[in-house]
């Protein structure tokens, strides 16, 4: 719970309002993190926000931040060298299945479906899934954004493709020069190559988009308990004490943010929860 000082050693501009910051520990490192978990990032004198971990290794932690409020504005505009306070990691991650053991060929397919900045918490799981060839039979990365200029991590798509992933990208609004698909990200499911009954799907983005994605994945035959979504609620403490992020019987910061659709689906369909 005590924030550990982390210094920003790199700041990469992703879009006009989104940056990826790389942080290194000055004293004690946070514990080992899993893809899908988040940390609480404290900007001294401004406030604290929960941020998904979007990458990092060897003690470094990356967060991809969209400038939407006072704290995220302070992080987005801070110069390299700025020190923040971090605590965590918190929550349940994507829970990537362990690699197939022995000489057995992989049987499972993985679909990663991201909308907007929802790709940020999915990036480490893509990296991990592709790190060991043969872990999955197929990996499909489906990405949607508002405009081409709003796409993040575009510099990594080539590497993901080279590692064997099918990477499909669509935008809601085309701009001149865009030659790719235009339409809702769920429209990419028809083009993705995966066998639904043996697929695990990770979905992150605006909640309505996740509902549509989960619905379509279910219709295609992906079991609900193998569709995992990353929820966003008003997470204040990160440890399940304050109750701000309650969603029915769940505390999203503790029981989530990643939750199976078999559990999340009925809760998200209930108004006022």
């Amino acid at each position, binding site marked *: 719970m005590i924030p550990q000082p982390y210094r920003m050693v790199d700041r990469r501009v992703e879009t006009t309002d989104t940056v990826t910051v790389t942080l290194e520990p000055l004293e004690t490192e946070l514990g080992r993190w899993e893809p899908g978990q988040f940390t609480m990032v404290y900007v001294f004198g401004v406030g604290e926000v929960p*941020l*998904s971990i*979007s990458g990092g290794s060897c003690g470094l932690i990356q*967060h*991809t*931040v*969209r400038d*939407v409020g006072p704290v*995220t504005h302070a992080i987005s505009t801070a110069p390299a060298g700025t020190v923040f306070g971090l605590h965590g990691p918190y929550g349940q991650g994507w829970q990537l299945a362990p690699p197939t053991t022995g000489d057995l060929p992989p049987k499972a397919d993985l679909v990663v479906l991201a*909308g*907007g*900045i*929802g790709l*940020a*918490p999915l990036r480490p799981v893509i990296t991990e899934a592709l790190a060991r060839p043969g872990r999955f039979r197929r990996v499909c990365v489906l990405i*949607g*954004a*508002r405009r081409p200029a*709003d796409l993040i991590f575009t510099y990594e798509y080539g590497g993901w493709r080279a590692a064997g992933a099918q990477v499909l990208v*669509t935008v*809601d609004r*085309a701009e001149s020069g*865009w*030659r*790719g*698909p*235009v*339409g*809702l990200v*769920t*429209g990419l499911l*028809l*083009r993705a190559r995966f066998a639904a009954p043996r697929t695990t799907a990770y979905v992150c*983005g*605006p909640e*309505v*988009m996740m509902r*549509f994605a989960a619905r379509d994945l279910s219709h295609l035959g992906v079991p609900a308990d193998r569709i995992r979504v990353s929820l*966003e609620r008003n997470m204040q403490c990160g440890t399940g004490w304050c109750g701000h992020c309650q969603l029915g019987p769940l505390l999203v910061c503790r029981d989530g943010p990643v939750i199976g659709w078999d559990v999340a689906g009925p809760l998200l369909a209930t108004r006022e929860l």
Partner: protein
Amino acid sequence: MTAPTLDLMAAHPFLAGMSRQQLDRLARWSHRSLIHAGGRLFSEGGRAERFWLIRDGQVALDVHVPGRGDVLVETLGPGTVLGWSWLFPPYRWQFGATALAHTHAIELDGAGVRALCEEDPELGRELYRRFIAVVVDRLQATRVRLLDLYAGDQS
């Protein structure tokens, strides 16, 4: 021509599960087509006499906006169906369509299929049911896009 088209039709998601007999009747009004990248399939206001089952490639739907030219509103890829204005009067295209890549499709004759639906109500009902599902799907996707969800999301 009919036999290979029949096999391609059976493999297309839009017609998945239709009986061999129904596919055979539809196949009589179909042929394979290749639209080269940049090829114009139809333009807004033109007579809607055909539709396509896209097998491979990509087609852009556009609408002409004065001062902005042809604005791309949506793309359709493999496994989708292009064109439903042939189903209802006044049989005019409401949008334009251009192939963005070499596109392989099965092209069907609208008037022929309409006549087929009249004489074979079961086939007609099945085909209309499938088209309604496509229309509903696209309507819902359009509504979600109208929400402009990505404008306010955060990590």
